[in-house]
């Protein structure tokens, strides 16, 4: 009878379940050797989702070949945080985990014994890593944990500018209206008003200009391309965009969310918003929209004043010639404060914990050999820009040049991200490497020029927060996270409310009291402690 058959099947499955069926063992790929004598390794890499399959990367094939390993890759580009939790707690990690801060300092501390201290391995079979440590001692500082061990290796990519954010204004609009480039907030305001009221782009419609636009400030703090850049006008130097507000001034840790200068900025932005000078959707648009809007239509620009990474990236190739990179503004014409800018050199050029090794790995030597390959200067260059031949040209005289994209319609940035690990890979681009960059990086460089005076004027000793170099203990980390979560949910909401509806003047004192309740002072205290400790050693 059919039914009794089904019941039998049920029982059989049930029994199979009980005995832990599914037979096939833990893949066992790691640790063995291939027929041709290569060591088998397993690895996870957190890559960008548009990055092509690793099997198509020529440089990687060669690097594995030279290291005598064959790696079974698991390429992850989404939900890494979730996956990581289970992976680490289960103690079940592959030989290598690669990716920018894929395993964080907090993880090393929370999962003791899971990762290998690389110090002896570097000494025995990591000459390229050792060379990086010797030439750039700060890389060793970044890598060394509180207990003095090295679990994750950093990267150094040398060519990146001092700051993520450049400031752009539409020069053509200024010319159309016979205006000068603004040099302070008041002039900026007047320019923006003119952009709004007149037909700045000259298409006959005086109402389609967006005078000012900035990247959507999320709920978790600020980032690049946001108007917090204007805090520089008040002499407040941010480090790595100071997303959660922390900055250092003359050796003292502060948070700008409770700073009078921040209040002034909010008031100024509200004045602009109320006058219709800022995009109405500035707090609700996503990043895609922010980018798309600025592309205007044809050669009619839509945005007057904005921030971005590089001008063709920000407004597209068609409109790029209309824009000019603008120097930092003063707060007012009679201000004596030397304008400054967000100093992001460290976070742009260094990266922590790019590669970690499992302490359970059966072939640590082989794994280290492979890591060492990645830090070879010519390999590192290919990690970042792509394989020799297709992406990089060997000039034959010991120098190299980054090639333009094969597909003419593609921009160099996308070309890089699709063809190789790019910034997500471990690398050491040594200062002695002779490499000519692609057009995108060259123009980033030239568009940073107007900011140079401000950036050079920064006192790197006393006004830059060495975030990259500080390691917090687990407890301090937890305390700070909890406090920051509470603080940001309050401050970011107030920020948006004040800019759109005003009220910063009236509510400021009450707000200060509330922010204090979230534990911001405790956090400042913690950071100060670590900062002082760091400064005393360096």
């Amino acid at each position, binding site marked *: 009878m059919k039914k009794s058959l089904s019941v039998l099947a049920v029982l059989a*499955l049930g029994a199979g379940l009980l005995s832990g069926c599914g037979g096939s063992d833990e893949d066992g790929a790691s640790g063995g050797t291939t027929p041709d004598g290569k060591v088998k390794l397993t690895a996870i890499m957190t890559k960008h989702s548009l990055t092509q399959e690793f099997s198509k990367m020529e440089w990687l094939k060669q690097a594995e070949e030279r290291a005598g390993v064959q790696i079974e890759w698991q390429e992850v580009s989404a939900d890494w945080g979730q996956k990581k939790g289970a992976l680490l*707690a289960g103690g079940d990690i592959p030989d290598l985990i690669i990716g920018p801060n894929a395993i964080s300092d*907090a993880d090393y501390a929370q999962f003791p014994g899971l990762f290998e201290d690389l110090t002896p391995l570097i000494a025995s079979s990591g000459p390229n890593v050792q060379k990086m440590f010797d030439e750039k001692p700060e890389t060793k500082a970044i890598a060394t944990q509180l207990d003095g061990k090295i679990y994750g290796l950093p990267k150094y990519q040398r060519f990146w500018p001092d700051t993520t954010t450049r400031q752009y204004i539409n020069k053509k609009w200024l010319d159309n209206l016979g205006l000068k480039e603004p040099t302070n907030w008041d002039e900026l305001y007047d320019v923006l008003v003119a952009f709004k009221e007149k037909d700045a782009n000259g298409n006959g419609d005086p109402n389609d200009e967006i005078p000012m636009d900035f990247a959507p400030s*999320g*709920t978790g703090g600020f980032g690049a391309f946001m108007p917090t850049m204007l805090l520089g006008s008040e002499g407040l130097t941010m480090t790595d965009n100071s997303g959660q507000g922390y900055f250092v001034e003359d050796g003292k840790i502060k948070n700008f969310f409770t700073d009078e200068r921040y209040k002034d900025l909010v008031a100024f932005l509200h004045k602009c918003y109320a006058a219709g000078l800022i995009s*109405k959707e500035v707090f*609700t648009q996503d990043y895609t929209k922010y980018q798309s809007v600025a592309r205007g239509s044809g050669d009619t620009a839509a945005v007057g004043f904005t921030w971005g990474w590089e001008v063709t990236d920000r407004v597209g190739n068609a409109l790029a010639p209309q824009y000019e990179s603008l120097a930092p503004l003063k707060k007012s014409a009679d201000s004596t404060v030397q304008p400054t800018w967000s100093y992001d050199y460290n976070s742009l050029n260094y990266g922590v914990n790019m590669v970690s090794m499992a302490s359970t790995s059966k072939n640590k030597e082989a794994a280290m050999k492979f890591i060492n390959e990645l830090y070879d200067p010519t390999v590192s260059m290919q990690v970042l820009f792509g394989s020799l031949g297709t992406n990089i040209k060997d000039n034959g005289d010991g120098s190299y040049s980054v090639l333009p994209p094969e597909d003419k319609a593609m921009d160099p940035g996308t070309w890089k991200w699709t063809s190789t690990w790019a910034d997500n890979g471990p690398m050491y681009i040594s200062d002695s490497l002779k490499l000519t960059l692609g057009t995108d990086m060259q123009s980033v460089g030239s568009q940073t020029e107007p900011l140079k005076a401000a950036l050079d004027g920064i006192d790197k000793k006393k006004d830059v927060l060495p975030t990259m170099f500080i390691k917090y203990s687990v407890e301090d*980390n937890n305390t700070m996270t909890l406090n920051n979560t*509470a603080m940001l949910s309050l401050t*970011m909401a107030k920020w948006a409310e004040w800019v759109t509806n005003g009220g910063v003047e009236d509510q400021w004192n009450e707000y200060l009291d509330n922010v204090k309740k979230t534990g911001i002072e405790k956090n400042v205290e913690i950071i100060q402690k670590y900062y002082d400790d760091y400064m005393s050693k360096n």
Partner: protein
Amino acid sequence: MVPQNPYEHPVNLRPYKKKKPTVLNTFRRDYQLWIMIFPAIVVIFIFNYIPMYGIQLAFRDYNFAKGLTGGEWRGLFYFKQFFESYQFADLMKNTVVISLSTVVLSFPAPIILALLINQLRWKRAKKALQTTVYLPHFISIVVMVGLLNVLLSPNSGVIGHLLQSVGLGDVNLLGSTSTFVPVYVISEIWQHCGWNSIIYLAALSTVDPQLYDAAKIDGASRWQTIRNIEIPALIPTIIILFVLSMGSVLSTGFEKIFLMQNSLNLPVSEVIATYVYKIGIVSNQFSYSAAIGLFNTLINFFFLYTMNLVARKTSETSLW
């Protein structure tokens, strides 16, 4: 209650005429039933009950070296930490507002839709509608929120324009504390109403056609047919699903709310689920999140338990 003869297997009739039926003395009679439910019990025991020892993580520190059960005992420390946290009151309020309005408003929608579809006489239209309404269910949350962003944008969205044309002009649906919950709930209904109506359609399909014929002969109007035949046929399903939905008064999804959050709607859009996510970004706060999760669960379970009690007292249908 003394079971009626016909319900029993004839062979096993005798043993429990004499004493109260219990699991033990009905086991021989019901062995077939036990066989049929055995796999389910095994699966649920193994995969749901065995890992439950993990609940104690809410009362302990997480210690990787010593395992889940080896960390230092902290008692109610993490619960207190949550209750005393700066955001606790706001989180609770926002969570309850969002989940309650979702439950209350999105619960009747699929019932109405099912009845409506059932009334549609034109067969083709019925098929077309039925196939269409359940499609939105398959749109992933990331794209759903992207869709909302594009369509609701005050400057460029279709719905934004529509609202402007009826004079609701300058409301930014995406960035206001007063529109966040409505947008969230309505988009939930839009996305899942059709899918959820499937179960009701199935229940309606079991109505005996003779009942319809009888109603017709009695001259009942369409409206009366709905009230006297179709709704009663749905009642058991409605009760069960309602009781189950009461078990989620403190659960909101995470991803959709998180993606819909922006600094303008943050005062109403920060919920327990997003809070737990944010505190875990830098380091895994295993114990703290476990405590918050357990607190959530207890409240949800309390509501389900109460609702089930009410259902059992007032109708024949209940979960257990």
